[in-house]
């Protein structure tokens, strides 16, 4: 049986490879998406014909180093301290983990404030803390705009799902959905969806973790993955939800400390004056040059155009409005359907505590995203966008480099210390996020499939905890294997995919089972299946996938350009020669290729399928349940409705 379960886990996890089929590019490298755009069309209002003021000649971007390395003498003790502290938490919580409720929900004994910090720790992944500050440092305003949806998403969680879920559920999403439906079918389908979402998210996190550790500490990728994986499995298997929660709380505290210290340093540089700060951004010659040459691709500056101010305006990174709205929909609705977020509401004793935890989390998360603007813009000012993209094209190292620079301006040791601290924060971040995901996936397999489908709910506490531990071990091991296998893949879009599936598959059925009298088994199954398949299928035909013909075309352009240069008699630099060889090889390799689905080019232009797949998920859920009405489900609506609103019967449901 255990082998079978492991097999299921692996098979489901393998599904994610399908979406990681892209040759490695810099993760989340937004540069690829930037299309040439003339400044004149972007901002006609600013181009006054009379103005003859030439933009200040950009000072040459300082030749910055193209790697970043932490000082091991400082980094190692900090890492050991974090691992040591969290290990103590594991030992302490392992003693308290006796029943299934202890394992999945820490016995419901987490307070609202603790849970709020843990939600924040669970939610703010390395992608948001490194990625968003990097995006701001390279694309200015759009990076900040991108971060807004991540906070607004919690309004949906707060108003629609947190309290009802606390009152109606027990350990998992399956508990809520199976309340007034055919439990076995619904639990099985729901577990598949939960494992799919968790796997997409987990893969993205694991690959990011490996690359980050490799970049910062020089640990080989595979060792980094195995190291992170063993710790994560250790936390979850031995400490269950209690240990996971505390790792998340510790991480959230470290992250906020790091972001606050750096923001203060950025603020001091600008004399604690926001006007000065914005003025520094808009008049920085390196930023002006970056916007003109790299982002807008104007070879010659348009006279009178304020490229510095352009950095503070929308549209440098996000080009397709429909895609932005689609992403916004997936964030706003998907967060509430994320299994690892939902699971956090079962750890608190009452609906009041669930409400409080969302509000605490909203303040932490919101405050953090406001700080990222200081970090991102600060990095652009003090490190130059050129220097940041030289180290990592996606800008993911901006916050790290900023720590080293601003600390180093005070004393070299402080620079090393701050960098080491931020490395440790990134590491703790990854551990906190992956632990939450492993726990959510293993709860779906052990609690929904093993205990409630295979064993019909007849499993004693000891057996349930064993099942939970064994599945966590299997899920963790699968995570390590996937992380190693996906090293060369571009996994950035897996996060978008996780949100798409959560918003199109999970959220419609959660909302309907809580609020619609007529909802039933057929509705849950059709909503989950259609929503999930639609999101995955749309991503498969979207520009997220690799289209070899497109790669070949781009390579061909490089070849033509460089050969033209050669034809004029100009000598190519060593780097250009290398580029030429690479482009030729790329062209030869890709010119006859097709995407995984055999397509020459994407069928849709949207990278985020939410705007199509979310309505599909809702419609499928409604149609399915109207086509196969169930009187029993309708009759039981009063019960779930009274329960979710009042919490009557909840204490008893949890205790036994």
């Amino acid at each position: 049986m255990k082998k079978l379960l492991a097999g299921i886990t692996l098979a489901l996890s393998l599904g994610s490879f399908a979406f990681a089929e892209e040759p490695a590019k810099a993760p989340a490298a937004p540069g690829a998406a930037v299309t040439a755009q003339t400044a004149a069309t972007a901002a006609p209002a600013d181009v006054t014909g009379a103005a003859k003021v030439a933009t200040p000649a950009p000072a040459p971007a300082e030749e910055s180093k193209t790697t970043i390395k932490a000082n091991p003498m400082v980094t190692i003790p900090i890492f050991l301290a974090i691992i040591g502290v969290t290990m103590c938490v594991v030992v302490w919580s392992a003693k308290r983990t006796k029943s299934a409720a202890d394992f999945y929900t820490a016995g419901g004994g987490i307070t609202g404030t603790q849970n709020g910090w843990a939600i924040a720790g669970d939610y703010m992944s390395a992608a948001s803390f490194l990625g968003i500050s990097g995006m701001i440092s390279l694309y200015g305003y759009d990076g900040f705009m991108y971060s807004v949806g991540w906070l607004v998403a919690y309004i949906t969680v707060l108003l629609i799902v947190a309290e009802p879920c606390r009152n109606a559920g027990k350990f998992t999403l399956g508990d809520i959905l199976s309340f007034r439906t055919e439990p076995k079918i619904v639990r099985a389908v729901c577990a598949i969806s939960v494992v799919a979402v968790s796997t997409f998210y987990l893969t993205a996190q694991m690959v990011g973790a490996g690359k980050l550790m490799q970049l910062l500490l020089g640990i080989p990728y595979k060792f980094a993955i195995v190291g992170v994986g063993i710790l994560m499995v250790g936390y979850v298997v031995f400490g269950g939800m209690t240990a996971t929660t505390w790792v998340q709380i510790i991480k959230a505290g470290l992250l906020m400390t790091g972001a606050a210290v750096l923001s203060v340093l950025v603020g001091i540089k600008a004399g604690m004056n926001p006007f000065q700060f914005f003025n520094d951004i808009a008049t920085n010659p390196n930023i002006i040059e970056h916007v003109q040459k790299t982002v807008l691709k104007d070879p010659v500056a348009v006279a009178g155009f304020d490229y510095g101010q352009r950095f503070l305006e929308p549209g440098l990174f996000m080009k397709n409005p429909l895609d932005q709205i689609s992403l916004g929909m997936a964030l706003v609705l998907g967060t509430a359907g994320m299994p690892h977020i939902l699971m956090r509401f079962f750890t608190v004793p009452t609906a009041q505590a669930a409400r409080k935890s969302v509000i605490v989390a909203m303040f932490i998360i919101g405050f953090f995203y406001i700080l990222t603007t200081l970090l991102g813009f600060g990095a652009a000012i003090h490190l130059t966008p050129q220097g940041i993209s030289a180290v990592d094209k996606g800008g993911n190292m901006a916050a790290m480099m900023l720590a080293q620079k601003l600390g180093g301006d005070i004393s070299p040791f402080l620079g090393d210390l701050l960098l080491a601290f931020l490395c440790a924060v990134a590491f703790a971040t990854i551990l906190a996020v992956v632990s939450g995901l492993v726990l959510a996936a293993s709860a779906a397999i052990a609690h929904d499939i093993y205990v409630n489908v295979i064993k019909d709910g007849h499993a004693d506490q000891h057996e349930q905890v064993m099942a939970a531990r064994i599945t966590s071990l299997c899920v963790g091991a699968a995570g390590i294997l996937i992380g190693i296998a996906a090293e060369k893949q571009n996994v950035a879009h897996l996060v978008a995919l996780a949100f798409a599936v959560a918003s199109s598959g999970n959220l419609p059925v959660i909302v309907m089972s809580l609020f619609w009298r007529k909802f039933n088994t057929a509705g849950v199954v059709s909503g989950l299946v259609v929503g999930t398949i639609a999101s995955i299928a749309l991503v498969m035909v979207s520009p997220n996938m690799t289209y070899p013909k497109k790669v070949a075309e781009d390579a061909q352009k490089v070849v033509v350009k460089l050969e033209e240069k050669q034809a004029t008699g100009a000598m190519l630099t060593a780097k250009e020669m290398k580029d030429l060889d690479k482009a030729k090889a790329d062209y030869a390799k890709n010119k006859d290729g097709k995407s995984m689905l055999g397509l020459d080019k994407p069928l849709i232009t949207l990278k985020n399928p939410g705007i199509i797949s979310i309505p599909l998920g809702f419609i499928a859920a409604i149609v399915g349940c109207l086509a196969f009405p169930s009187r029993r489900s309708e009759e039981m609506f009063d019960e779930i409705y009274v329960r979710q609103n009042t919490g009557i019967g909840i204490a008893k449901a949890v205790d036994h």
Partner: protein
Amino acid sequence: MADKQYDWGAIAKNPKFVELHRKKTTFLVGWWVFSAVFYFLLPIGAAFAPGLFKIKILGRINFGYLFALSQFFVSWGIAIYYAHVANKDFDRLTRELVDEFK
């Protein structure tokens, strides 16, 4: 779940429950719709009214930045207002109802 059997239908028809339900629904749906509309004004506005976002309000700080920043404060505001109403009204009504059916 072999607990005490509640007559769920009777609770659902209880006037107090009906009142609680009506109040909560109006509040939650209303504010959710407001927050969603307010949020989507950001990507829609940035895409279709870039001129508005470029207007400088305070020195170099433009409308776009202030609008994005306002999203945070509006979200926090809704959260605090909801907590206030829920703690004051919803929880009290719920407690009265639960006591009645104990």
